[in-house]
């Protein structure tokens, strides 16, 4: 199976996922990349919420307004979806230009969806706090995984193949 391009892709994808998740688990990476990135996500959500006049503030990874507060944990910052997508892109047999553009575009797209996730969860917390846990875990985590897969399929078909066919 490894002799085929598809087999090589799967092996590379699994290896990339393994390396990626191990790297994310390391304390220096967590302290200097994951936590600052999570704070960055909280600030993005703050900016979006303040467009609606929420008067939100961020302290560390806690997003607060007079109406509701939410802490953004590892697992809710979109990094897992980014990793699932980016590993798929990097392992795919395409040109490095297509891969780089794919990773950058995917990062932006997943991040945008993640801001929508945080903002929507914030309002679920404001208006239907009893639905918060289900929306957070069951709805949005499922959607973010599916979104990463869809994004990868679209990239592979449109961009990687377009590049390969030129």
């Amino acid at each position: 199976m490894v002799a085929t391009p598809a087999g090589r892709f799967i092996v590379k994808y699994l290896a990339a996922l393994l390396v990626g998740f191990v790297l994310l688990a390391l304390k220096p990476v967590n302290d200097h990349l994951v936590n600052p990135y999570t704070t960055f996500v909280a600030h993005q959500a703050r900016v979006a919420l303040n467009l609606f006049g929420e008067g939100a503030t961020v302290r560390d990874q806690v997003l607060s307004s007079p109406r509701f507060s939410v802490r953004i944990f590892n697992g809710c910052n979109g990094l897992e979806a980014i990793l699932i997508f980016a590993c798929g892109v990097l392992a795919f047999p395409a040109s490095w230009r297509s891969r780089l553009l794919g990773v950058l575009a995917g990062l932006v797209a997943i991040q945008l969806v993640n801001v929508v996730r945080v903002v929507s969860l914030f309002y679920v917390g404001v208006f239907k706090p009893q639905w918060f846990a289900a929306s957070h875990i069951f709805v949005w985590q499922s959607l973010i995984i599916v979104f990463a897969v869809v994004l990868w399929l679209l990239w592979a078909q449109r961009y990687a193949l377009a590049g390969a066919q030129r």
Partner: protein
Amino acid sequence: MPAPSAELRRFLWRLPLSVVAAAAIWLAVRPVYEPALCRSAEIAARMVEFPKVAKILRDNGYALIGRTDLRADSGWLKLSLTQIHFNAVPFLALLFAFPGARTRDTFRRALVALAVLALSHLLALVANVKVFYATNLGSWSESQYSDTARALYGAVRYFFDIPVTFTLPLLLWVGVFRERVLALAGMAQGDTAPRPSGRRERRPASRA
């Protein structure tokens, strides 16, 4: 830039409804699945410990993990069961969204994949029992487990919480449909494949 293939378009059209169907099935099965998961995990945890004292109770979507040889108020770990088994929803959604006929072989692979997913839920809960022993019982944990063992159990918790939970649905979906998923991404098994050089690789049929 080519448009998505007809199969990918069908997949994308079916996906929203598939997510709804998967969520509905998950919500219907959950009241039966959660008690079964807690009971199975308790039995499994007791199989690998002496004395056999692991206790897992279900409480409104949460698992309460404790030990029967400790006082009832001495320490329980409250853990979201939804966080452990929600990944059945993206897996089922991806499964249902795939267009085309369902063959007996696909059905068999899907059943095996569901069994693997359920096994991962069971192992995640058992791992949390061990993590609870090693890290949540204060001085008792410190006296029973070395720093290395506690760090190892922390790594096990991370492994089940993040990598397994988030990637297993995707990997099982690829496992069920194999060549068709890769073909959906424009990469047929051993046939033609896009290459970084911009050329397509063609292999002899006998080697495919």
